[in-house]
């Protein structure tokens, strides 16, 4: 029996998702035994032409991590979409834009100006910017073009499944691969993780007071964190209540508040808006001054609530063409 062919690809991402695959440790051997990895440029030498040579649909499954920011990334994901029966958006950046997606708070022009002119270490008297094409004696050289905005994978091509997380937890990856091999994948469009908040699997949950009210939000470096008590109850901005579980509440277990990398639950349309209203509900303050003081522990609300999901958020529901 021929083994199903599998591909991995990365776009705008940090490389952590690739690490996560390796983090499967010995389990990866089982994966390799069960499937044929035919495309994984990060780990082995494959070329685009290898993909182009494949028949449409030849890849059983392609895991793509990272957001889509350049013309080259878009071309690649379109190509992979054609070649793969199932495309899985792997990790927060592919799922909803992730950290690179925060660039959508500014513009392409501002980013380029910053990098090629404004930073202190830049010396660029002729204001030379990268060009899509340039003529040199040897011929025409080309570079990929930066898109106007960062897109989540699902905003660039149709995606079949989402494996959330920054990076996806090893257990979720293993479960997904298991489901692929066993042919027990859920309905297309599903997120391959439990549909319940992180608190559900957090050992601190039972310490929550009946009335969850906080007068002052704090940042982790400002307090000696109680290692057993609910972090939110201690005033730390823990996004556990807002975030899909599947990580085993790893961050709270490590004495750090949840930052929301597994993203929103199925029934929530906009992670940031929900997280904001959830946190605001917990703030026990009436007067404007008390509200301001309480929120002093959230100095960067946009970055806090939309850390992993800006491009896919309702804020960016309509992407500029």
């Amino acid at each position: 029996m021929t083994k199903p062919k599998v591909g991995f690809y990365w776009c705008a991402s940090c490389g952590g998702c690739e690490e996560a695959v390796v983090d499967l440790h010995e389990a990866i051997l089982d994966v390799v035994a069960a499937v044929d990895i035919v495309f994984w440029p990060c780990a082995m030498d494959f070329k685009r032409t290898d993909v182009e040579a494949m028949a449409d649909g030849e890849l059983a499954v392609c895991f793509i991590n990272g957001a889509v920011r350049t013309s080259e990334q878009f071309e690649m994901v379109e190509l992979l979409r054609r070649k793969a029966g199932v495309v899985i958006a792997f990790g927060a950046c592919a799922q909803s834009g992730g950290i690179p997606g925060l660039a959508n708070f500014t513009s392409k022009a501002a980013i380029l100006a910053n990098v090629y002119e404004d930073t202190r270490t830049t010396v660029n008297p002729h204001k030379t910017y990268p060009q899509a094409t340039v003529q040199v004696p040897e011929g025409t050289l080309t570079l990929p073009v930066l898109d106007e905005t960062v897109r989540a994978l699902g905003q660039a091509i149709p995606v079949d499944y989402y494996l959330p997380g920054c990076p996806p937890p090893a257990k979720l990856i293993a479960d997904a691969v298991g489901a692929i091999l066993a042919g027990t994948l859920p309905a297309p469009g599903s997120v391959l993780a439990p549909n319940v908040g992180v608190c559900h699997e957090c050992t601190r949950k039972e310490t929550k007071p009946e009335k969850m009210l906080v007068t002052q939000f704090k940042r982790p470096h400002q307090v000696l964190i109680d290692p057993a008590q609910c972090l939110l109850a201690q005033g730390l901005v823990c996004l556990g209540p807002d975030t899909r579980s599947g990580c085993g509440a790893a961050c709270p277990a490590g004495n750090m508040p949840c930052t929301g990398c597994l993203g929103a639950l199925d029934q929530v349309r906009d992670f940031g808006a929900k997280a904001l209203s959830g946190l605001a509900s917990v703030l026990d303050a009436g007067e404007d001054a008390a509200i301001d003081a309480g929120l002093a522990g959230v100095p960067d609300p946009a970055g806090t609530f939309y850390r992993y999901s800006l491009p896919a958020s309702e804020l960016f529901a309509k992407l500029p063409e």
Partner: protein
Amino acid sequence: MSETMQSAEPRVGVYVCHCGINIAAKVDIAAVVEFAKTLPYVIVVRDYKFMCSDPGQELLQQDIKELGLNRIVVASCSPLMHEATFRHATEAAGLNQFYFQMANIREHVSWVTADKALATRKSQALVSAAVRRVVLNEPLEHQKVPVKPNVLVVGGGIAGIHAALTLANAGKQVTLVEREPTIGGHMAKFDKTFPTLDCAACILTPKMSMVRSHPNITMLTYAEVVGVEGYVGNFTVKVKKKARYVHEELCVGCNECVEACVYKEGRFTDTFNEGLSKRKPVYMPFPQATPSVVLIDPESCIELKTGKCKKQCATACTRNAIDFTMTDEIVALEVGAIIIATGFQTFDATRIPQYGYGKFPNVYTSLEVERLVNASGPTGGEVQLRDGSTPKRVGIIHCVGSRDEKTNRHCSRVCCMYSLKLAHLIHERTDAEVYNLYIDMRTPGKGYEEFYDKLLKEGVNFIRGRAAEVTDWTVTPEEEGKLVIRAEDTLIGVVRRIPVDMVVLSVGLEAHADADEVRRLFNISCSKEGWFLERHPKLAPVSTFTDGIFIAGACQGPKDIPDTVAQAGAAVAEALALVDRGFVELEPNTAFITKELCSGCHTCIAMCPFSAIRYNKEAGVAEINPALCKGCGTCVAACPSGAAQQHLFTDEQIFQEIEGVLNYV
């Protein structure tokens, strides 16, 4: 209709109402109908002159039966107006009533949009929103909750007294809460009442003592409501009874203690007499006070202020009723309905300085004069000036703090009539020359115009025009030593100077200064002047926007005693209708938590204003008690997981509605 048919593929009927020309004059009905036909799941679209009429309702009922519709949208007026009508029509045709959705194209469109094209587009957008939403509506059932049989009446003026007695006579247990030490309200201060000039005390005090002795009435005087929780049929009310320092059940009102007080004479402002006399720290508000129990004012009592008094009052009391250690007490009540009858306050005449109130001793307010002409008032009913002399010329200025851009724009409705009454009483008792300065004479009421005619014949002078000022600056020997009212007589077109010994300011009726606090306490609304707002000015005049809470008397707006009593009766009828039914049907738009989706994060629990949410430790999830849930949606907005949702207002329904409006074209 069978359940299977209800849950099948949506089949929507859309009905566009003309509302006579209310909607049709501004909205192109045909265009809305044509547009609605293009919407998904829409099977039939019709328009009709009056959808709320019987033939209108039959239209949709027939379609439900014949075309197998399972969703109904009516585009007409506000849901406040006719949602119940159409829900019932839907239900009567065999469809669950919550498969009905209303689009408001009257209050939200035709009445407020000037441009016909825009009004039509807006109507289309709202129809599109309603169709998208109704597809997601689910069948729901009303929950029945028993109603507590007892009733609370707040305010012991004539409105509250009449309400309490009528309810008690119907066999209900009533608690009457009055802020002052005695019930009676304003009426207890009057000598005679217009237009019949019957003695106020003769008709009021029997009712007051009936309240006192009625087995079904608990009277809490010198008390205020401090907390209201719960909902229609099931209110929990906290009342603070202020310390009287006299045990109510021991005191028989003999006044021995008042006699014995170390102060030989009254020294402190007697508020019941509008400051026209002095009282002692221990006092009875007025002879017919109900309850007939004295009280001690902690602000002026030496013992309560310094602990160093001979306490002669306590020694004099043979029944040991006086107790300086008494403290405020909180009483909790469980009631099914509440009638608010807190009355009014009179306009503060110092706000119009040109009339000289507070500056010239012989300028009085009407309420002060009510005390002066009262047989049990400070002068025993003699109309005397502050120096004891009898006025020979008296000017009564109408509309002080009424019908005036600078103070209150409203007409206080009773001032013309009570000014006529006071003119009659003053004239009768002193034979003085009386001048009434009025803007318009407003005497609409049974026997009122006749009363005015009578006064005209009695020789009272009437000058039409707003008084400009009251001054002691005299110009002729005739004016010497007198106050002069300057006013334009608009009937003869001259400015007149009227020298008088006494000026009476007919102060208007205003909402209480604390109306906003009281409104918040009971969760009802106020007009901008502070009058409590009725649910509908014509059709629900004693109901409020909070079910189970009714209003009566002058707290709703200025009115005379006959209207006050009639309104109190109406409020009682509404309260009885609620209480005697024995149950209320709760709207099923309650919140619910899907337990598989709940992480147990606790966010919602503290949010609920009705304490309806509890954490279930075994299951690790939050749970809502539907009987306590009022459907406010606070937890739904707060739930970070989207696990808490509200029936009829699920996130998806709201999003569909928004998208329907935004994407309708």
